[in-house]
């Protein structure tokens, strides 16, 4: 086995520069990668996975440096090698696929010219041959019009296509190793499938070794032979994929796996005669002259959660903007407890504004970084309930306790001094301060690491039961929908495609789009992608490409 060892990293320590000091961010990592092996590096943000991936290429970003350890590629010590030796390896034997293809393609050159650059400068093959090869690769990767697509400029091609073109570019010299740095994170689920299948297929065909970096467990389960779990620059655990999924050893790994098992007890059925807290009736809306919502209707009842799902651009956030009054609908109306609300929030009275609150996706931008927690929560308390002085302080402290933060410690803090999850909790407390009946949760967990997201979901569920709150839960993550929704509304291109109770929605038959959406969400089962492709009648992507031409 030892001769086909491709990458050998021992005791790798990396430092990053901040506040004019070097701080260690990777604390001694060992890594062995064999020829043809795909290793998944998984961890939350700040785990150091991208840094390690780049270090395996002998590369560090500006402001980082390798302080200790060895990085060997096929017996060559990359730390000791000269810059020109390293350059000879990069692109030719080691290639890189970046997270954002749109930013990583040079806007000034055609895609195919960037593709042929590495083979040309490394003298692997002449440009004409490399161009032909590029077209072959585009075809294998199921890009539309493989003969001509390469002659376009990057901004003329969609994100999912660019990501595949970049994978093709990484393949241009048939490298021994490719580093995939979150290649599908920026994509929608339905697009992600195509890119994942393409990557897996091509890596298998050429027997290329790969390091696949991601924060998504289900994705890594499809792609990797072995998985290494990282936490804050340390290795937690490493094993082959099936072992890791079925029998994790460390508590941290187990907790990562457990996230998707959160299932609150079901709630009683809706009382049919009850007036919904919010009722959206046939609303249409447009930005300027561009129509974005078409005849959307749904109801949200007291104490229940309606999940609105769809990909980016489906209109789910626009629907929320209509409800809050930021975007007055052009047609239809919104009823609050049966009474119509003015379309524009400026025309609503204080009590109407109080009734509907909002929790945002990015806790960073949702809290004013220069305002203390006491004021962030205290202001709506005072504004809506008129409490001042000690009464106001007591109320803010009670709210902090409700969201499980110690008032003594957090009362006077500023948002930048909090972690992402804590900020999101403050956002929840600010919404609760208004004592609302209804809260819109706009992708509240999607910017958070999974463990933290789990905590937020549990908190929201508890608060709902305690306070009888109605939630509109906007998300693109179907796992979240499964765990917390009572009713589901599926949206596409500004229209409601399908809606109903959760149990019905997750049971066939589905609307074709719902079906596509549901089936595209990666599952933890390592055979999921294979099975899915099989079900969709695609055994091998190369064949599919031929068939679809």
């Amino acid at each position, binding site marked *: 086995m030892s001769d086909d060892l491709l990458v050998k990293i021992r005791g790798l320590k990396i430092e990053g520069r901040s506040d004019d000091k070097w701080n260690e961010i990777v604390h001694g990592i060992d890594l062995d990668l064999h020829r043809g092996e795909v290793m998944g590096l998984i961890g939350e943000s700040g785990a150091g996975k991208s840094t390690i991936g780049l270090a395996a*290429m002998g*590369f560090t*970003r*500006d402001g980082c440096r390798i302080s200790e350890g060895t990085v060997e590629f096929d017996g060559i010590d990359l730390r000791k090698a000269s810059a020109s030796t*390293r*350059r*000879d*390896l*990069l*692109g*030719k034997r080691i*290639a*890189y696929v*970046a997270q*954002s293809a749109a*930013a*990583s*393609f*040079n*806007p*000034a*050159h055609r895609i195919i010219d960037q593709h042929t*650059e*590495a083979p040309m*400068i*490394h003298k692997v093959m002449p440009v004409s041959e490399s161009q032909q090869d590029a077209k072959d690769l585009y075809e294998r990767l199921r890009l539309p019009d493989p003969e001509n697509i390469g002659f*376009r*400029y990057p*901004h*003329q091609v969609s994100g999912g296509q660019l990501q595949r073109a970049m994978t093709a570019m990484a393949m241009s010299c048939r490298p021994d190793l490719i580093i995939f740095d979150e290649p599908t994170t920026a994509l929608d689920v339905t697009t992600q499938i195509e890119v994942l299948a393409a990557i897996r297929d091509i890596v298998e065909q050429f027997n290329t070794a790969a390091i696949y970096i991601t924060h998504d467990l289900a994705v890594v389960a499809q792609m990797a032979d072995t998985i290494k779990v990282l936490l804050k620059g340390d290795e937690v655990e490493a094993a082959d994929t099936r072992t890791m999924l079925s029998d994790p050893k460390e508590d941290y790994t187990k907790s990562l796996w457990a996230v998707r098992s959160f299932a609150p007890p079901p709630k009683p059925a809706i009382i049919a005669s009850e007036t919904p807290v919010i009722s959206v009736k046939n609303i249409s809306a447009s930005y300027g002259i561009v129509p974005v919502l078409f005849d959307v209707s749904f109801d949200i009842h007291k104490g229940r959660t309606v999940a609105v799902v769809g990909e980016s651009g489906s209109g789910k956030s626009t629907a929320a903007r209509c409800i809050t009054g930021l975007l007055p609908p052009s047609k239809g109306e919104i009823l609050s407890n049966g009474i119509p609300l003015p379309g524009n929030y400026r025309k609503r009275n204080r009590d109407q504004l109080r009734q509907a609150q909002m929790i945002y996706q990015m806790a960073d931008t949702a809290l004013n970084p220069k305002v203390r927690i006491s004021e962030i929560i205290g202001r709506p308390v005072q504004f809506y309930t008129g409490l001042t002085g000690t009464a106001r302080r007591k109320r803010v402290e009670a709210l902090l306790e409700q969201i499980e933060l110690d008032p003594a410690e957090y009362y006077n803090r500023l948002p930048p001094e909090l972690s992402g999850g804590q900020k999101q909790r403050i956002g929840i407390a600010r919404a609760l301060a208004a004592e609302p009946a209804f809260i819109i949760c706009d992708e509240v967990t999607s910017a958070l690491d999974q463990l933290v997201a789990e905590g937020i979901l549990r908190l929201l569920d508890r608060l709902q039961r305690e306070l009888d709150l109605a939630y509109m839960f906007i998300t693109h993550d179907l796992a979240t929908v499964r765990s917390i929704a009572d009713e589901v509304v599926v949206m596409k291109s500004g229209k409601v495609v399908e809606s109903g109770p959760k149990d019905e929605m997750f049971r066939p038959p589905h609307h074709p789009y719902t079906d596509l959406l549901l089936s595209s969400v990666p599952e933890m089962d390592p055979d999921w992608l294979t099975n899915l492709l099989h079900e969709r009648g695609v055994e091998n992507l190369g064949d599919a490409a031929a068939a679809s031409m």
Partner: protein
Amino acid sequence: MSGFGADLFRLVLKRLGFGLLTLIVVSLIIFGAVELLPGDFAEEILGQGATPEAVAVIREELGLDQPVVTRYFSWLGGALTGDFGISFGNQRSVAEQLGPRFANTLFLALVAACISVPLAVGVGILAALYRNSIFDRLANITTLTSISSPEFFVAYILILFLAVMNPIFPSLSNVSSGLDFGTRLERTMLPALTLTLVVTAHMMRMTRAAIINLLASPYIEMARLKGVSPARVIVRHALPNALAPIINVIALNLAYLITGVVVVEVVFVYPGVGQLFVDSVKIRDIPIVQACCLIFAATYILLNLTADVLSILSNPRLRHPK
């Protein structure tokens, strides 16, 4: 790809139209500002000894009895054909006084631009490539100092060292029409150098910032990760994208020259538009002030317009529409 160029053409046309609009608005401001003057031209000309009869005569002579709109269009129409009216100060035609001076100012600005543009862009790129090196820090301190100095300080320092202590160039720029190119260049050198020092500093700092910004792009990292040599990264991957920002920087700073020219011409008694402008402001010779303002503003607008159009043309995203 079928609509190649059509969008681009429309974009450029739109920008040109906008430039024209700006020019019209600026001419309105320049004309309108003078209208706000308490009293009017006629009283200004006659000063203390204005009798109502004399005022009336002059008003009629200058057409001041016409409505504002008529006067604006006749002024603008005159300006477009090079007729800026008669100077209050010496009763000579404004165009006649401005003409030769405009050529002199243009010559001065051209000499300054020829030295400063290559220098600034070159040093700026080097400073960006070797950022945080001694060279970069030195360039940073030097340029910051020269930006912070008033033009006349730079001018007198140059006079002190290059005219008084080492008589290389004359300290007064006695330029007239009969001079041969060499002598003219020699006499223009000190004001041109002064302008160069000030403008180069600005231009170099902006070039450096633009290049550093560019080098941080993911596609530059991608090129390095493909094993592309540093020289090729610069030439093939950075420069095509750097063109637009650099063109912008150059045009912006050439526009800046216009302001600098006024003070520098006064220091060196250089017979250009700037000096005439300042003298006319002192004696409130309004037709000349208006004409100078219009010329300076139009040049400034045209330079900015050129920058915009060139950077539209050099942007690959706009050159190759979807």
